[in-house]
């Protein structure tokens, strides 16, 4: 009984301590995400802020991304994803580091640290351009100051986000304006 009495407070302290290590901002952002039935993999959670999990301390920290996002065919919230789009990210400050990567069937793309040309990392601000042979190049109007998840700002209003979450956001990344 004495051993048991000594272990219980220890377990409580340990559990409490571990809970205290979680990031409440990240937890709140994750809780706000819509559900996605797609199994985990390169095509899951399209349109969502990928680097919430794919980063140090995240649920997918084993597969970290420098940048990740989803491209759609049009700006219509019901638009299908745009596959095979070339995404080019350029290190805005130095202008020397860059990467080109293609979107997959879900419109998702992700840039891993080993894809990036500079082993020192990204020097923000970064600039982005998307390109597909049948559409031509499209350049992002602003630079990226620090957000590695495109879905952190680009939101599809049909994805069941609460209205207040859409304030301070911009529509999904798309290739063409819907007719």
């Amino acid at each position, binding site marked *: 009984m004495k051993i048991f009495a000594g272990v219980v407070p220890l377990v409580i302290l340990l559990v409490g301590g571990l809970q205290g290590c979680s990031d409440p901002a990240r937890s709140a952002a994750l809780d706000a995400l819509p559900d996605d039935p797609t199994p985990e993999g390169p095509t899951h959670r399209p349109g969502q802020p990928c680097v919430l999990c794919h980063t140090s301390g995240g649920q997918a920290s084993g597969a970290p991304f420098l940048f990740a996002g989803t491209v759609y065919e049009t700006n219509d919230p019901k638009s299908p994803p745009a596959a095979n789009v070339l995404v080019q990210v350029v290190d805005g400050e130095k202008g020397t580091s860059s990467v080109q990567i293609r979107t997959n069937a879900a419109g998702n793309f992700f840039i891993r640290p080993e894809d990036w040309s500079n082993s020192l990392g990204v020097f923000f*601000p970064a600039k982005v351009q998307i390109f597909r042979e049948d559409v031509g190049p499209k350049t992002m109007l*602003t*630079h*990226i*100051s620090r957000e590695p998840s495109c879905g952190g700002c680009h939101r599809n209003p049909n994805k069941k986000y609460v209205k207040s979450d859409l*304030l*301070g956001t*911009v*529509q999904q990344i798309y290739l063409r304006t819907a007719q």
Partner: protein
Amino acid sequence: MSTRAKQSSAVKWALFGALAPLVYGVVTTGCASVPDETRFTRLQVPDRTQFQTAGVSSFLERRCGTLDCHGQSSRALRIYGQFGLRSPTGLDAAVPSNSAPTTDQEYASNFQSVVSLEPEELTRVVANKGVGAGRLLLILKALGYEPGKNEEGVQHKGGSLIKQGANDYGYICLVSWLEGSADADACGKAQSAY
């Protein structure tokens, strides 16, 4: 009255005499005079019109006001603009980003945000025609002077955005505005770089 009762009474009075000033002091400290509603501090701020027309706001919108930095409602320096955060137009509603040019209301909000960062310090700088502008957080943070690397060091997560001197249009834009005559050409070149 017995001797014992007299002694007890004397002790009570001595205690009362000792504690009364203390109690009075505590009670009256909490009763400060009513604030004078007519009293105010007059601030001197840079020109509001130039902030909008010379492109100071537009430069800040492009350089600082992206949605992942100062285009967030939680920031002390909150920047609204066409390509970033839009000012709410009603209950839980806003003009979508990139759908319309920056509105007068947004320019006004940006101005208020900038001049409210350090109003007293800003007043000193403006009163001295921009002398000491380098003391302002608006400049220090944009320069990205980091603690330990510079005696004026401040933490700026966005790093260095402008460089001190006549070769940086962003620096010229901000400082010329603080000096009283915003350099529209510099502001225009600074914003077009982004």
